[in-house]
């Protein structure tokens, strides 16, 4: 199908484009920007007057819950959520059941996703077998099956000798290792930041040092091995200088934060709101503010959803017994826009954090930008529109979000994957 997206404000951070321009799509690729190619006959036109035309969003962490946790969500339900959120590429962490440590499993997942024909998936393979932190996974085989990086998801390796070996092995091939820093002993029983709220509510605490100690260890070992590193889901202001110093020493290290840590802090737990039971935990206000500033400055590369559908029953428990996590695929754009609005961030800058930057972390040339000749994945949205967050309006199978009941800025109008309109909504 030959598609013309007419009169929209095209924002493509990769190519420094921010102007009213038409986009022409043919055979699933971007055919031209601005003027139509010579032989182009428009078969379908989208009138994007007043709308923003951006690259499809790239989410670095979306749990689709397959295989193993289909009662929480399915590939199908969460792919729909991705489309509703304008997310056209997403990385899947390996904490499925069983974990993504078998090439066959990864192949099956890729095959299932392809059949659904919605967002492109980027599986992140398990760094160790069963995520047990003992034996190296078959990283070369897993890469051949489709994995783009390796991680332990949120299960840190206890034995630093094993961590060292995984980094050495990954660096042999130039694979990027993703780490979510958390000292296994200091985080074990904790459910909330070791701060005022945990002290008052009597919740088992997790000190900021649990993150910084692990981060320091990871950085030291990565530097020693020359491994390429991505640090996932920072939560503490005190982690930022460590990242800064590592980069100053020339290390290849990227990092992200999630939408919850961009907007919320420990006080949002209120009276034991289990929707705010997250991993890593919501930290102090000062941490949140420092992370926001670092994201604005580009010290934090990307913003992700850290999407984790949890069934109602697992949240309807006392705080420390409830399951951690919140959904975010459909909130990634609205919460990026909310941040941009609150902190006066230029729209192209804000969009770069959820398109170009995460695509670079995934080493993907095909996602996150709208250069002529690349895959036509687009998110067309109304920046002045609104996204109400209710159980009824959310497409994800999970309804677990601290933002339930709020109305957030921005509204996705069209999601286009390889030139196909996969989602369309009214104003």
């Amino acid at each position, binding site marked *: 199908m030959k598609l013309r997206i007419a009169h929209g404000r095209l924002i493509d951070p990769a190519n420094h484009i921010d102007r009213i321009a038409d986009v022409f799509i043919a055979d699933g690729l971007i055919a031209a920007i601005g003027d139509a190619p010579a032989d182009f006959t428009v078969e379908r036109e989208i009138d994007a007057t007043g709308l923003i035309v951006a690259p499809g969003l790239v989410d670095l962490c979306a749990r689709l819950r397959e295989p193993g946790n289909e009662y929480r969500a399915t590939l199908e339900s969460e792919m729909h959520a991705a489309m509703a959120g304008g997310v056209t590429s997403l990385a899947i962490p390996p904490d499925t059941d069983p974990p993504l440590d078998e090439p066959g499993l990864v192949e099956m997942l890729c095959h299932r996703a392809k059949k659904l024909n919605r967002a492109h998936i980027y599986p992140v393979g398990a760094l160790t077998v069963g995520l047990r932190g003992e034996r190296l996974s078959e990283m070369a085989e897993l890469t051949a099956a489709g994995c783009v990086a390796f991680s332990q998801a949120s299960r840190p390796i206890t034995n630093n000798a094993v961590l060292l070996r995984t980094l050495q092995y990954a660096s042999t091939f130039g694979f990027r290792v993703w780490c979510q820093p958390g000292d296994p002993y200091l985080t074990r029983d904790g459910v909330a930041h070791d701060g005022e709220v945990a002290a008052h509510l009597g919740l088992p605490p997790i000190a900021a040092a649990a993150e910084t100690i692990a981060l320091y260890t990871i950085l030291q070992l990565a530097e020693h091995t020359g491994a390429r590193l991505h640090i996932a889901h920072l939560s503490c202001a005190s982690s930022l200088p460590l990242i800064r110093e590592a980069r100053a020493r020339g290390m290849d290290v990227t990092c992200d934060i999630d939408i919850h840590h961009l907007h919320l802090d420990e*006080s949002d737990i209120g009276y034991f709101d289990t929707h705010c039971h997250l991993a890593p935990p919501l930290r102090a206000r000062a941490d949140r503010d420092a992370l926001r500033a670092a994201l604005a400055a580009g010290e934090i590369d990307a913003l992700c959803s850290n999407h984790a559908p949890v069934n109602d029953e697992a949240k309807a428990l*006392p705080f420390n017994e409830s399951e951690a996590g919140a959904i975010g695929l459909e909130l990634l754009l609205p919460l990026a826009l909310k941040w941009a609005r609150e902190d006066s961030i230029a729209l192209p800058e804000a969009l770069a954090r959820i398109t170009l930057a995460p695509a670079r972390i995934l080493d993907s040339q095909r996602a996150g930008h709208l250069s002529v000749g690349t895959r036509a994945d687009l998110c067309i949205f109304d920046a002045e529109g609104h996204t109400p967050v209710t159980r009824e309006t959310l497409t994800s199978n999970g309804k677990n979000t601290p933002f339930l009941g709020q109305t957030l800025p921005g509204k996705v109008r069209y999601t286009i994957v390889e030139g196909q309109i996969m989602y369309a909504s009214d104003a």
Partner: protein
Amino acid sequence: MSTPHHPQLDRDGRLQHLLTLEGLPREILTSILDNAAPFLAVAEREIKKVPLLRGKSIFNLFFENSTRTRTTFEIAAKRLSADIVNLNISTSSTAKGESLLDTIDNLCAMHADMFVVRHASSGAPFLIARHLANIGRNDIHIVNAGDGRHAHPTQGLLDMYTIRHYKGGFEHLRVAIVGDILHSRVARSQIAALTTLGVPEIRVIGPGTLLPHDCARLGVRVYHDIREGLRDVDVVMMLRLQNERMNGALLPTPQEFFKVWGLTAEKLALAKPDAIVMHPGPLNRGVEIDSAVADSPQAVILPQVTFGIAVRMAVMSMLAA
């Protein structure tokens, strides 16, 4: 985000549940203490009963065992003529896989008027309160009988009653709380109530392993040296040291704890001569308190128990009568 409406007050600011003393308005706190006084006299009568809660069904929901606390609520309910049912749920339905809220729904269907809830997890009574609000059962009241490390409001109230009884007021007092603050719901409720009632100086005394990180955030002065911490105090509130904390990572041995932080006559002598000694029970003699102190005239531990019944009667009658 703004702090949500406090779930223990109704829209008119009246007490709907008793979940915590933190954020409980001073007038309500004081009125509970005032209402408790006449109930003390009930126990002195030949017939120790008043008909305030006749026909009301109260369920003691103890998801964590505590014979003593359960008994005090049972006695209080019976003296108010309520029908009380004891459920030890740690050995019943949840052990069979039923969720907490399913249990609550079942008891709602049995026309309960009040739940007295003890649970090992902080915040469990808040979860139940939110659920009751969601299903529109505002006719059912909850009394928190201790949730995890968070709160034990009736213990805090009976402690305030005891202090007021012996000291006449709060605004001139220096109060020390000694022992395991970190894991103590009692300490959190005491600190909240003492703060609300205007005690100018609250001290906490204990080792670093048993104090919340940056404990001063709770509005208290922190002492590691018990001798320094007890100097010139009017009230000494001892906490119970749980068995599982005595040996291992938090404390080397109960013997060392007693030697350093145990309350002896010699240490108590540093407090004001008329200082009172309180303890929520059950006592660990020779661990947190020496028998000579526990049995001395300065100890008001048994009156605390008596006052506890009256305070629980006051709370239950204010909620459900």
